[in-house]
């Protein structure tokens, strides 16, 4: 490939030599600029920006070395090859040429064949450098685009995630602002009945592909939690969605909690994350929450298992969830933080309240680098009153609402096995505008009555079992088993809305097919402290305006009312 026509600067103080060289170079097809000293050379360079310089070392006014230094400085990032013209032979003098920025030499007498070859070689280098700079600038621009895209994606995601309650008083968490792009997802939301769902997820991969699954997942989480769906319904929906939309090999390791302040229990589902921990404040006992399921997005709908483990809690007990970023954090020596260190922090802890901070401290002692990849959350069982819970938000569509109607539903064995009727019933009742401000209380009461009817009435479980932690586990295990093989039985809901002169009233009756109970005996029972059951009916009596039992003990009737002018008294206990 022949060299393109270059502009070549020749700096040589001997007039004859300068003339000779200029002729040789221009005969090779290049444009020649000629200078007789270093200062002239510099000026010509700045003015014309030649691609190559032939520089005599010894010149008056400013010698070749100084001129070369200044020209290189002037050229900046671009490569302007400088070939020194010299009859210097001493090694030291030649070194001086290179140190001054010279790229090559040409000895006198000038050999035009060698000169031509050197000009070609130098020009190749020059073009290589130019290509490198162009590529670098292109890469920098693309990188900037990627960062901008990520910023936009994060802004969109933050809007989706805004309805969460990670700032609740009983939650502490640690997460990098760009955790989304490490695939980490942390969600929390209040349930209409007052409890709380918490979700920690870790998507495979990094960058936008890891972040993109988070949005549909968050929508499902928030949407279904707000409508009162349980984990048993939310998890399969999340799983199906991810299975459908994510490519093969992409999935989400996750742990989900359902924390109920009223019933003082937590349900846990773990799929693929490292062990979480239930830390009992009083005894310091630590229960590992071990992953028993595959991550979300792996199993198809038919084989997905949403079975949860249930643990009783007392005030101050806390759950700690963490992503593998914490265990995999490396220090300068390349060692991983690993489980041993975490367990050591647990062992050394004396005050449950300080556990979270102690783990953070241990982590930053271990590795001074910023923890970009660590997600950790602590959820504490507290008194519900301590939580500053925002009022439920139900968008008011239309002022016309049905105020005078009744409906009855009977859910039989086959349906009871798989279907949770509560969200459906609640949505129906919320069509009544005036009931919306009592949505929380309504849901709590519905949930209690249904659970009572199903567990005690239809399944025949004895809540006396739930007096200690071991009994608790047995109770819920029994519940799953009996429900799975249920052949007979029903739960009936009767809803009656009637207007009244100053407002309206909802009469709600729940019946079941079970053996019934002695209502007088039950009413007479006072709540023994520490008993894990019986709280439910106490709650119902507190939340509803009126509560009564049918004579045979197979049904409970509750009433809610409202007055027209009030915006709704703040009846929901949350």
């Amino acid at each position, binding site marked *: 490939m022949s060299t393109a026509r270059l502009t070549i600067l020749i700096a040589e103080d001997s007039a004859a030599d300068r*003339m000779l060289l200029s002729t040789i170079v221009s005969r090779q097809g290049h444009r020649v600029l000629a200078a007789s000293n270093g200062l002239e050379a510099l000026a010509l360079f700045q003015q014309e920006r030649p691609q190559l310089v032939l520089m005599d070392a010894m010149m008056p006014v400013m010698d070749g070395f100084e001129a070369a230094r200044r020209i290189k400085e002037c050229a900046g990032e671009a490569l302007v090859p400088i070939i020194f013209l010299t009859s210097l032979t001493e090694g030291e003098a030649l070194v001086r040429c290179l140190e001054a920025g010279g790229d090559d030499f040409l000895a006198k007498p000038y050999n035009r064949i060698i000169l031509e070859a050197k000009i070609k070689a130098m020009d190749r280098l020059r073009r290589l450098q130019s290509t490198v700079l162009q590529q670098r600038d292109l890469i920098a621009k693309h990188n900037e685009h990627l960062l901008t895209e990520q910023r936009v994606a994060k802004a969109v995601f933050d809007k989706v995630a805004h309805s969460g309650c990670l700032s609740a008083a009983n939650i502490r968490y640690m997460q990098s602002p760009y955790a989304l792009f490490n695939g980490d997802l942390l969600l929390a939301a209040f349930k209409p009945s007052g409890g709380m769902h918490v979700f920690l997820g870790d998507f495979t991969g990094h960058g936008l592909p890891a972040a993109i699954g988070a949005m549909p997942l968050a929508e499902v989480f928030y949407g279904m939690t707000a409508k009162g769906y349980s984990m048993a319904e939310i998890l399969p929906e999340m799983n199906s969605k991810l299975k459908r939309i994510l490519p093969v090999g992409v999935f989400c390791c996750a742990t989900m909690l359902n924390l109920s302040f009223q019933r003082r229990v937590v349900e846990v589902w773990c799929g693929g994350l490292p062990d979480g921990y239930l830390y009992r404040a009083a005894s310091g006992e630590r229960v590992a929450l071990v992953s028993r399921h595959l991550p979300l997005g792996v199993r198809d709908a038919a084989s997905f298992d949403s079975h949860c483990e249930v643990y009783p809690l007392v005030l101050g007990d806390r759950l700690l969830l963490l992503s593998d970023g914490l265990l995999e954090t490396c220090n300068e020596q390349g060692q991983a933080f690993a489980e041993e260190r975490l367990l050591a922090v647990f062992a050394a802890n004396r005050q449950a309240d300080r556990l979270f901070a102690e783990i953070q401290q241990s982590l930053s002692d271990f590795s001074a680098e910023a923890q970009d990849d660590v997600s950790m959350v602590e959820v504490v069982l507290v008194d519900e009153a301590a939580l500053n819970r925002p009022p439920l938000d139900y968008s008011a569509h239309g002022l016309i609402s049905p105020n005078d109607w009744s409906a009855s539903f009977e859910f039989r064995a086959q349906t009871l096995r798989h279907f949770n009727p509560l969200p459906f019933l609640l949505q129906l009742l919320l069509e009544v505008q005036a009931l919306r401000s009592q949505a929380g209380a309504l849901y709590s009461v519905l949930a209690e009555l249904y659970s009572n009817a199903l567990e005690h009435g239809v399944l025949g479980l004895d809540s006396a079992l739930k007096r200690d932690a071991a009994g608790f586990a047995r109770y819920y295990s029994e519940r799953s088993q009996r429900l799975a093989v249920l052949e007979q039985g029903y739960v009936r809901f009767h809803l009656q809305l009637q207007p009244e002169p100053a407002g309206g009233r909802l009469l709600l009756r729940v019946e079941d097919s079970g053996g019934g109970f002695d209502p007088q005996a039950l009413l007479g029972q006072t709540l023994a402290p520490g008993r894990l059951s019986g709280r439910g009916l106490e709650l119902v009596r507190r939340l509803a305006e009126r509560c009564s039992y049918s004579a045979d003990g197979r049904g409970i009737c509750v009433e809610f009312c409202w007055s027209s002018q009030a915006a709704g008294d703040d009846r929901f206990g949350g």
Partner: protein
Amino acid sequence: MADDQGSDMHVDNHVLNALREVMEDEFALLLDTFLSDSDERLRLLRQAQAQGDAQAMRMAAHSFKGSCSNMGAVLLAGLCKQLEDLARREQLDDVAALLGHIEREFAIVRILFKSERQRYR
């Protein structure tokens, strides 16, 4: 760099031929330029000797050497090298004879170049 050949020639015709080929119509101009350049250089050398300025002598001798080698004036280039080495060692007492020799050699080269020039007017 002119290296010593078996017979140190005054002017290497191979070099002259190559120059003629490159310069074409400007060959005569090149010879003229060299001759007037060299006059100036000799003047500088004399001045440096008179002032005892070893540095100036060294630089002028070095420069002259380079020019001569480009033009094929082999013997003259060699003499300039000797002068350069003396000047570097600051042995200016010994330069007088050498300088005389250089002037005489240059006179010969001048005649040879002028006759070259005549042929290609």
